[in-house]
C-alpha cells in the first residue's frame, strides 16, 4: 500500500526524523490557514500517488496566504496522470545549504534491507547511481541483529561525508531503517534531506510503501493515518468490473476465483492458477486474441464462486465467448469448475456449447468434469493439448 507524501512524512516523524512544520489541506481555505500559521513563503504540493507532479504544475510556490489559497484552489482541481489529488501539502520554504538522500529498500537477492545514502539529494537515486556512483553509499543490514548506528555510519561515510554532518546524519539513517523494519515497509525514502543554515537537518519530502501482506499487523498505524481498509492504492484505480470480481471471490472462503483485471477485448477468460493465468493470458495474445479480462482461479473454489466468476465475465459488455483454461490442477477439482461455468451459462439463458469456446483443465477429477462437458456439448481438452494450443482454439472460437 502506497502512502501519500503527507502520510509518509507523518510516519518518519513518528520514527524520530525531524520534519518541517507542514500541514495538509483538502480545501483552499484550509491551505490559507496553514500558510498564515507558517507566516512565511510556502510550497503547495499536490497529494497524488503518481510521479511527475512538478512537471504537471502540481507544485506551486507562494509568498503570501492569499497566493497560497489561490494556488491551492488550482492544484486541488488539477488532475495528474489521471489521478485527482487527495489534497495539498502546505510546506514552509526552507533555506537549504545542501540536499542529501537517504533510503532503505529490500535487496531480494541478498534477502536483507539495504541502506542507500547520497550527498546529491533532490534527484532520483537511480540517476545519481548511474552518473555519480561514488556519491552513493550502500550498506546491507541484518534482519536479526538489533539496529545499530555503525551500519548507517559506514553507509554515509562511503560518500566522503565527515565531521558534524556525518554525526548528525547517522541517527536519521538509523531511524529510517528502524521505521522500515517496524512498519513492514518495502520502501522508505527521505529525499531530499535539507541541511539548514544552522547546520541542522530536516526531511523535506518522504516516500513510503508498505507491504500489503503486513496490513493486518500494521492496522493501528494505518488507522491513525486514516487509510481505509477498502483503499487498495494500486497503480490503477479498480474498475466497477474489478470490484464486482472481488465480491465474487468474497462469496465464501473456499479457494480463489478472483484477482480480476479488466481489459477491453472480446474473449472472456476464466483462467488459473497463478502461473497458469500468466501463461494463458500471454498465449491468448500471442495467437492474436483480445482478452476481456485477466483472472485467477485456484485452491478449489466452490461451484458458486466459479459460476459467479464465469457469469461476471459473460455479462461484461463486448464479451462474446469465454475460455476456461488452467494448468494441470491437483488441488482444484475439474468437475467443480466445469459445473460452475456450465451453471453460469444456463443461469443467463445461454447454451454452454455456444458460449464456452474451450475448456482445458486437466487433472484431479477430470473424468467427472469431462462427463459434464460431454453432456452439454462443450468443447474440451485434456493434458495432451498444450496451454498454447488451447489458447489458439479459444481465439479461433471467438472468430468463428
Amino acid at each position, binding site marked *: 500500500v502506497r502512502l501519500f507524501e503527507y502520510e509518509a512524512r507523518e510516519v518518519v516523524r513518528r520514527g524520530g526524523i525531524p520534519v518541517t512544520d507542514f500541514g495538509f489541506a483538502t480545501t483552499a481555505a484550509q491551505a490559507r490557514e496553514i500558510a498564515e500559521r507558517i507566516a512565511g513563503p510556502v510550497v503547495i504540493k499536490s497529494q497524488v500517488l503518481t510521479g511527475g507532479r512538478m512537471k504537471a504544475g502540481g507544485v506551486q510556490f507562494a509568498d503570501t496566504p492569499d497566493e497560497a489559497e489561490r494556488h491551492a484552489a488550482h492544484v486541488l482541481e488539477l488532475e495528474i496522470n489521471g489521478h485527482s489529488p487527495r489534497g495539498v501539502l502546505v510546506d514552509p520554504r526552507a533555506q537549504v545549504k545542501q540536499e542529501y538522500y537517504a533510503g532503505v529498500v529490500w535487496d531480494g537477492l541478498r534477502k536483507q534491507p539495504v541502506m542507500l545514502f547520497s550527498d546529491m539529494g533532490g534527484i532520483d537515486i537511480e540517476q545519481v547511481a548511474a552518473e555519480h556512483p561514488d556519491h552513493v553509499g550502500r550498506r546491507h543490514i541484518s*534482519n536479526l541483529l538489533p539496529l545499530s548506528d555503525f551500519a548507517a555510519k559506514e553507509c554515509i561515510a562511503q560518500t566522503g561525508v565527515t565531521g558534524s554532518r556525518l554525526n548528525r546524519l547517522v541517527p536519521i539513517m538509523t531511524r529510517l531503517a528502524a521505521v522500515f523494519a517496524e512498519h513492514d515497509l518495502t520502501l522508505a525514502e527521505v529525499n531530499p534531506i535539507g541541511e539548514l543554515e544552522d547546520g541542522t537537518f530536516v526531511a523535506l519530502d518522504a516516500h513510503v510503501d508498505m507491504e500489503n501482506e503486513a496490513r493486518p499487523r500494521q492496522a493501528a498505524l494505518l488507522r491513525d493515518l486514516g487509510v481505509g481498509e477498502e483503499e487498495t492504492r494500486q497503480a490503477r484505480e479498480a474498475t466497477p468490473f474489478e470490484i464486482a470480481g472481488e465480491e465474487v471471490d468474497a462469496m465464501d472462503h473456499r479457494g480463489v476465483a478472483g484477482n480480476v483485471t479488466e481489459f477491453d477485448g472480446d474473449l472472456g477468460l476464466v483462467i488459473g492458477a497463478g502461473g497458469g493465468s500468466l501463461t494463458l493470458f500471454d498465449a491468448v495474445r500471442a495467437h492474436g486474441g483480445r482478452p476481456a479480462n485477466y483472472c485467477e482461479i485456484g485452491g478449489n473454489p466452490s461451484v458458486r464462486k466459479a459460476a459467479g466468476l464465469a457469469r461476471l465475465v459473460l455479462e461484461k459488455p463486448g464479451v462474446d465467448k469465454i475460455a476456461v483454461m488452467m494448468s*494441470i490442477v491437483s488441488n482444484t477439482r475439474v468437475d467443480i469448475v466445469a459445473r460452475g461455468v456450465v451453471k453460469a451459462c444456463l443461469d443467463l439463458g445461454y447454451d454452454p456449447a455456444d458460449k464456452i469456446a474451450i475448456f482445458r483443465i486437466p487433472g484431479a477429477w477430470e473424468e467427472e468434469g469431462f462427463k459434464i462437458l460431454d453432456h452439454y456439448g462443450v468443447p474440451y481438452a485434456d493434458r495432451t493439448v498444450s496451454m498454447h494450443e488451447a489458447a489458439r482454439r479459444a481465439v479461433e472460437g471467438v472468430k468463428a
Partner: protein
Amino acid sequence: MSILVDAETTFIVQGITGREAVNLTRECLDYGTGARIVGGVTPGRRGREVHGVPVFDTVAQCVEHHGGPIDGSVVTVPPAFTKDAVFEALENGVKLLVIVTERIPRRDVAQMVELAKLRGARIIGPNCLGIIVPDVIKMGGIGGPAQDAAKAYTPGPIGVISRSGGMTTEMSSTLTAAGLGQSTAVSIGGDPIIGSSYAELMPLFETDEETRGIVIYTEPGGRMEAELATWVTEHESRLPIIAFMAGRFMDEMPGMSFGHAGTIVEGHEDTASEKIARLAEAGIIVAEEISEIPGLMRDRLGAGATA
C-alpha cells in the same frame, strides 16, 4: 539420485491438523516409496494422529519421539505464526524447511532465511508446493494426490525449478509425455524473497550425476533470473537450461501485481523482455511455448537423450 530429498529423508508437518495439511500428509504418505513422516505439530493437539502420524505440541517432542535428528519440515501454519514455527524447527536441528504458507510479510521471511543460513539449514518457499523426486518421495502438495502426481512426474534426467507450483506440474507433465523424466522438481515459491533461488539450487543439480538438463519457469519481478544468468556465466555449468517466461503482457503494466506476490514490474531490470535478454546472453534458451521445451532440451542433450 536426486537433490534435497531421497527415500531416506525424514520430515514432520507443522500445522498438521489443518485441512490442507491433512490432505498433504495423506498424499506424501501414499506417493512413491512412502514419505517417512515421523511426526506432526499442532500446539495443544498432542496425542492425536493424522493418517497414523503422531501429533505433538512441539518440534522438540517430535525429535524426542523420533529418537534423533529430523531432516525436514513442511510448514503449513497461518502467516502470522509461520516465523515462530520456522524458528522452532531451526532451533531443533531441522535442516530443510518447505514453507507452504502464502502471504507471509517479507520481513518475517527475511528473518527466517537469515536464521536458516546461520544454522546451516535451507528453506524452500514460502508460497510453494515443495519438492518431488518422481516415484520416490514428495515433500509438500506438489503434484497433488499420489495417483495424480504419478501421471505427471516420471524419473529421468531433467531438473525442474519453478516460481509457480502449478506450472511445475504442467512443465513436468509435458516433459513426461515427451519421454523426458525428472530427477527432482522444485517449486521454489512466488514471493519476492524466497529461501532458495534458481542460482542457489544450481550447484546441487550440478553435482547430481543423474541430472543432465534444467528446465525453469520464470516470471517478471525481482532479479532472480539475472542472478541465474550471472551464475551460469561464471560457473560454466555443464547443464543446458531451457527457460519459459510467463507474464510478458505485464511489461506494459508497471506497478501492477499479477499471479504471485513477487510478480510485479517495478523497474526496467525486472521486465519480462529484459529478463529474456539476460537469460539469452548467458546461453539459456527461452522457449516461446511450453510444448517446445522437450524438443529444445533434446537438441541440447544430443543423441540418445531419453529417460
